[in-house]
């Protein structure tokens, strides 16, 4: 059931990762770093890439899941506690993007409707996705990739004629603002944590390094291209543009006979955004299930989504304060959970390769197989194997 393919992990970084950084993040980072926003973002992306590489390296050193590693090192109770903490972190890290998306939805999709009615149904979709498991994360990434590729290309092509890239000059003049932009932008860069929870749920393939690496670079390039184009179009008024992805392409289409045709592509990107926003919720439920003793996902999913809906309603008039609190006061939480802990996972005790894993990893479809079978990494197009269709 909880299976994901390497290709899907690649698509997650190529498509689902960039889209979450196209709403409020560009305005926020341009507020701190001004024309050096690319440097700020590049710092974050480099850091995230390094963590991703280390997590992949860990995947090659062991077949166990993260839970099994924790259990081996600290015992089952401690592992459940840690998973519980991660469940809380995923829920916590999902809150700000949800508020961001809510603002995006109410401002771009509507002119005249109570926001709760507009946005509350999202939690129904999220609940459904949370119940379905890992498999849907991967398959959603398969769907999201071509949609994102087409829509992003169209939006950028429409935006490029209006962009003056000299607005990004001078490079490096931002000084402290660059680091501040990176530090306070950590809330948007939590994607490197996901592969840690995919450990043991995907088969390693030949060339995984460069596949994931290239896809990550593609995603990173998409983020940087978007930020550069955004600042090239808006320059000094960039920090006013709250919903960047909906703003950059309108100048080319505004006076054509077809009107705002770019809105259709923005709506399609909103679909990708929905899929990407469900990922932390799904992982939160996954962690909660393991923390609570391998229960079914139904009640944790319901509880999580009701909680998130409650927070969204409670904070509906406090987005700015919430964002300030998260980014400026709680950046260290994101640093620890998204960067320090995944890297520290290398210190966990791994079982020697070749020994059968008799832990809950098997229950969740972990690939604790014999050494001979595992060393013969799955070749492309291999049609044997039971769980082939992830």
């Amino acid at each position, binding site marked *: 059931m909880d299976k994901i*393919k390497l*290709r*899907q992990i690649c*698509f997650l970084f190529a498509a689902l990762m960039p889209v979450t950084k196209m709403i409020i993040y560009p305005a926020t980072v341009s507020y701190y770093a001004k024309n050096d926003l690319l440097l700020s973002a590049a710092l974050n992306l480099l850091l995230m890439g390094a963590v991703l590489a280390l997590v992949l390296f860990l995947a090659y050193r062991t077949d166990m899941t993260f839970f099994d590693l924790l259990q081996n090192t600290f015992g089952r109770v401690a592992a459940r506690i840690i998973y519980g903490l991660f469940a809380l972190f995923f829920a916590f890290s999902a809150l700000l993007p949800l508020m961001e998306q809510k603002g995006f*939805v109410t401002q771009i*999709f*509507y*002119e*005249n*409707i109570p926001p709760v*009615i*507009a*946005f509350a*149904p*999202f939690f*129904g*979709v999220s609940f*459904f*996705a949370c119940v*379905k*498991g890992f*498999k*849907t994360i*991967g*398959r*959603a990434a*398969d*769907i999201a*990739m071509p949609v994102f590729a087409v829509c992003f290309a169209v939006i950028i092509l429409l935006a490029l004629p209006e962009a003056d890239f000299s607005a990004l000059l001078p490079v490096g003049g931002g000084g402290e603002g660059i680091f501040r932009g990176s530090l306070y932008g950590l809330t948007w860069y939590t994607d490197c944590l996901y592969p840690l929870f995919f450990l043991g749920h995907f088969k390693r393939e030949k060339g995984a390094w460069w596949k994931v690496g290239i896809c990550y670079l593609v995603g990173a390039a998409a983020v940087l291209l978007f930020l550069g184009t955004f600042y090239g179009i808006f320059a000094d008024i960039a920090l006013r543009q709250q919903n960047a992805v909906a703003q950059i392409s309108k100048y080319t289409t505004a006076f054509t*006979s*077809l*009107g*705002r045709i770019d*809105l*259709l592509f923005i*709506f399609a990107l*909103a*679909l990708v955004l*929905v*899929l990407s926003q*469900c990922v932390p919720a799904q992982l939160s439920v996954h962690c909660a299930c393991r923390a609570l003793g391998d229960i079914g996902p139904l009640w944790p999913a319901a509880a999580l989504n009701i909680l998130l809906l409650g927070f969204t309603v409670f904070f509906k008039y406090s987005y700015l304060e919430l964002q300030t609190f998260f980014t400026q006061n709680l950046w260290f939480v994101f640093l620890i959970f998204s960067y320090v802990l995944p890297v520290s996972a290398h210190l966990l005790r791994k079982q020697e390769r070749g020994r059968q894993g008799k832990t809950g990893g098997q229950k969740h479809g972990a690939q604790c197989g014999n050494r001979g079978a595992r060393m013969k990494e799955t070749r492309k*197009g291999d*049609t044997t194997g039971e769980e*082939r*269709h*992830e």
Partner: protein
Amino acid sequence: MDKKQKQPKILSADLNENIQNIKAVLPAEDILVYKFTSGDDVQCAAVYADGITDKELLGSLVARPLSLAKAPKTIAEAEKLLYFPESKEAEDVQAACGEILAGNPVLFVDGMGGGLVLGTKKVTLRAITEPQTAITVKGPREGFIEDVKTNMSLIRRRLKTPALRFKSMEVGRHSKTLVCVAYLDGIADEKVVKEIEQRISAVDIDGVPDSSYIAKFISKKPYSIFKQIGTTEKPDILCAKMLEGRVAILADGSPIALTVPYMLAEDFQSSQDYYISPFRATVSRILRMLAVFAALYLPAAYVAAELFKLQLIPLNLLLIISGGTQALALSPSLEMFFLLAVLEILIEASIRMPKYVALALSVIGALVLGDTAVKAGIVSSPAIIIVALSGISAYTVPDLTGTLSVLRLALVVVAGSIGTYGIILLTALILYYLISSDSYGTPLLAPFSPLIKRDLRDTVYKTDMYALDTRPAVFRGKNKTRLNVNNRQKEESDGQN
């Protein structure tokens, strides 16, 4: 319960007793007894069901030879005497009754123990014609009919291979419908075949009037709005699907064959795609996908744009629409809901109406509901255009029309209540549902999700026949090679030399 009653009654050597026992089980008036004597004046009788037995054959191949020869004493002697191509022994009354009801008369001879079942079934069948739901300009025009044996013969004619297997089962306590599972050994996944057989065998129902009943029983999510099982009425399509690795299920009394595993993408494929140029086929496929997209989203987008996001509509068009909707009594969402409901009613009526009122009702549909309703200010012209376009587009993929109608209505309701974001959320929900659904191990949304690049060449676009050298990777059969490309290349190069 009495053990004696449970045990089937054995057929005796007494002719009258046998006839009495048979008539006790089958008292219906269409169960007739044809009595005649053999050459040595021994009483013989054939019990048959009127209307489904070939009486001519009975007379010429059974009664006549027997009347000229000595009465057989055993079943073996009878078989030898009659040279009947299909005959077998009925051991007990129940078995004999079953055969009589199936159209095979049972021959009793006074003094011969048991009864001889004779295969003289004759059912009035319709001719093999082109099915209405799968019309093609190029390609075969044959379609399945209601007789499973004929359908099997249509398949056998196209797949003259020892690998073609048929496994028959009887389903239905009263209907005793013959259900046949057909597959190509070595190409189809054995696990799928086994699972289907198990599921069909486990069915305990009164009757199976159509293969769609079987479809419900072998579906893993019978309540799903999406199809779980593929269907076709054409033998060429069925054979092509079997050659890809699918398993076919035929049911007696139904012209619709079922195929598993099923993928949503196969409904966008037409048999004609394989008989025309790949470029034309690719354009047709893309058109179908766009048409389905339009059928689903056009009404909802129209409602959402009018209610929530005027910016979606270009200004000039917006003014036209606004002019058209100013005096309307209904809000845009109710107007669209009303029109979709009328469309569905028209479709239902057109399927069921007698042909001689079709013209009159067409006039009513066009003039009254179209022109007059606009003039009366009940609906607007743009809305009618949208609904008409959506309705026509849905029929580019006839197999999905039912699903599309329901989804279209759901999208309109969501668009009218939640708006543009609601459309996106419902789309996401549908996507999550589809990506978590499998049909016998094959994901419904394959080859899009999970992405199987090799299979895209016969899904999104239609590639040249020589590129389709392997079967779809999504199926798990052992034999993957469809086309031996190397031999052809060798022949070509030999030809050039």
